[in-house]
């Protein structure tokens, strides 16, 4: 009887244990894969931590030699000279001036473009315009640097004959044109998120398209449009090649767009090209400059993130 049951059960048991084993293997394999995928996702966190750690670590050595007060208040930046001064202000003023020029170009054009794309353009026009704008985003910045130095600046010199070959106006304008697509696409997104019923309400009161766009849709999308501007500022501040090529590399505490000046990014490029010895104060100074740049863009990105979150929640 016993043996009979065993004989009868054995094959079945075998099947069950097999399936259980396979199940276990399956389960184990699934877990391993999930773990590997998670590690890949964690690489993003690791990158952020590494950026912060490296910037802080090298800047810490820098601030052992240079006091933070000097760094923030001195009006000269000459870390590589005999008479070294470490005041970040000239680099910040260069960054600020070029970004401001860029925004003066990009904000009006980007906003009008976004209103047009979101409220006026037919489906067909939009389908053609948006990919073309995306192409513009894809153009490498070094090429725009060439354009600023050898096309825009000579052209501006015809209008302002006293304009030097290296100035902040030309690269600022080119940078502005570069960031139009960023601003227009985010602002358009925000305006398209405004519910149709608001437009219909406005039309029902007899408003025209233009009135609806400017007095109903744009105000409703304010936080998103502001997010677009902030993103634009952040791009302009971090932009490197255009200013490194066309704005000159002489730190200069000025807000005059006709002058040449170095930005934070241009300074980093200039020093990196010079092949400074590892651990020297010049080497450390680019990390301190980078830390300032990272803090500015981090602040702007956070602000933009909050503004965008606000318009996503609104409707």
């Amino acid at each position, binding site marked *: 009887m016993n043996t009979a049951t065993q004989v009868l059960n054995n094959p079945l048991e075998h099947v069950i244990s097999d399936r259980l084993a396979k199940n276990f293997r399956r389960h184990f394999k699934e877990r391993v*894969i999930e773990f590997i*995928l998670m590690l890949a996702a964690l690489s*993003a966190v690791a990158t952020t931590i590494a950026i912060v750690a490296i910037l802080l670590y090298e800047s810490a050595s820098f601030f052992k030699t240079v006091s933070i007060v000097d760094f923030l208040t001195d009006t000269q930046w000459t870390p590589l000279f005999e008479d070294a001064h470490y005041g970040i202000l000239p680099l910040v003023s260069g960054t600020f001036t070029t970004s401001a020029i860029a925004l003066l170009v990009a904000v009006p054009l980007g906003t009008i473009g976004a209103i047009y794309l979101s409220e006026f353009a037919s489906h067909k026009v939009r389908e053609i315009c948006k990919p073309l704008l995306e192409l513009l985003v894809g153009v*490498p910045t070094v090429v725009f640097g060439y354009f600023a130095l050898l096309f825009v600046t000579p052209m501006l010199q015809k209008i302002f004959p006293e304009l030097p070959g290296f100035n902040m106006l030309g690269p600022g304008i080119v940078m502005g044109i570069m960031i139009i697509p960023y601003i227009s696409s985010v602002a358009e997104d925000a305006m398209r998120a405004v519910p149709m019923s608001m437009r219909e309400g406005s039309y029902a009161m007899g408003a025209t*398209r233009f009135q609806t766009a400017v007095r109903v849709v744009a105000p409703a999308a304010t936080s998103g449009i502001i997010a677009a501007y902030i993103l634009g500022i952040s791009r302009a501040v971090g932009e490197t090649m255009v200013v490194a090529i066309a704005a000159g590399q002489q730190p200069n505490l000025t807000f005059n767009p006709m002058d040449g000046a170095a930005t934070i990014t241009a300074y*980093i490029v200039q020093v990196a090209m010079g092949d400074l010895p590892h651990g020297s104060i010049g080497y450390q100074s680019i990390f301190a400059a980078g830390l300032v740049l990272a803090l500015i863009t981090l602040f702007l990105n956070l602000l933009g993130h909050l503004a965008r979150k606000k318009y996503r929640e609104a409707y």
Partner: protein
Amino acid sequence: MSEQQASTLKDLDAVRAMIRRHKLNDYIFALIGLLALMVGLLTLLTLFVDLVMDGYTRLNAGFFTEFPSRRAAHAGLLSAWVGSMLVMMVTAVTAVPLGVAAGVYLEEYAPKNWFSDIIEINVTNLAGVPSIIYGLLALGLFVYILDLGQSILTAGLTLALLILPVVIVATRESIRAIPVHIREAAYAVGATKWQVVSDHILHYSFGGILTGIIIGMARALGETAPVITIGALTFIAFLPPSPVSTEPPFLNFEWLSAGFTVLPIQMFNWLSRPDQAFHVNAAATGVVIIVVTLLMNGTAIWLRYRIRKNIKW
């Protein structure tokens, strides 16, 4: 009575005039809007024509087969385009698996909790970090701490980190577009999560992921600042050792640690010389870079358009 009629007619005329005026305003604004968008495109066109006009004399076969030289007319792009290709290879091999895996994890596996939120915030934030900061990271970490030197490997890894957010975001977006019933059908016949992902999700999202990869690679090709920051050389008159050899083991990896230059850096170098003759070379290099990146981006955009049109569900 007639006075009243006249005034009604006058009012009517006034209303009609107002409507006409408003319609005109609409029309004028639409025109201004279109022009505002055209500014960017016109610039791109002018830029391209300007580059071609300045550089066309150097755009011949010799330009691609010669090393840089002190004499502008004999200087070529050979070391730069070979360097670019090798760096891009490292970038692709690193960024593609890492980015796709991270995207799959965030979209399919990640539980909705603080942990995933942190990863997500990180990815968004990394996309906004200026490229030169990645250069500083690479200079401190890859070049000195990990001691990889100013090599092709360093440059490739740096650019991989730079385009990682692009690949992750593209992967997530194209996975998100797949309807739930595809997953449910697979689960219903007993597939495991990984089987669902590898047999269905990745299959359906392939086009979208590819689009993101191409856009990311185009960006890596054109990036200059981070590669300059790690200290890429600007005057290279030799090629890295070939990755493939005729003798076993057929592959060698010496090229990874070789010094290099890339196309945008070569252009920057020629551009920063005072000699006008080198500016012609810079323009010609610009034409090469812009044509390649526009082709890559154009392909990606076209691909996305096709996918959107051929969606099956």
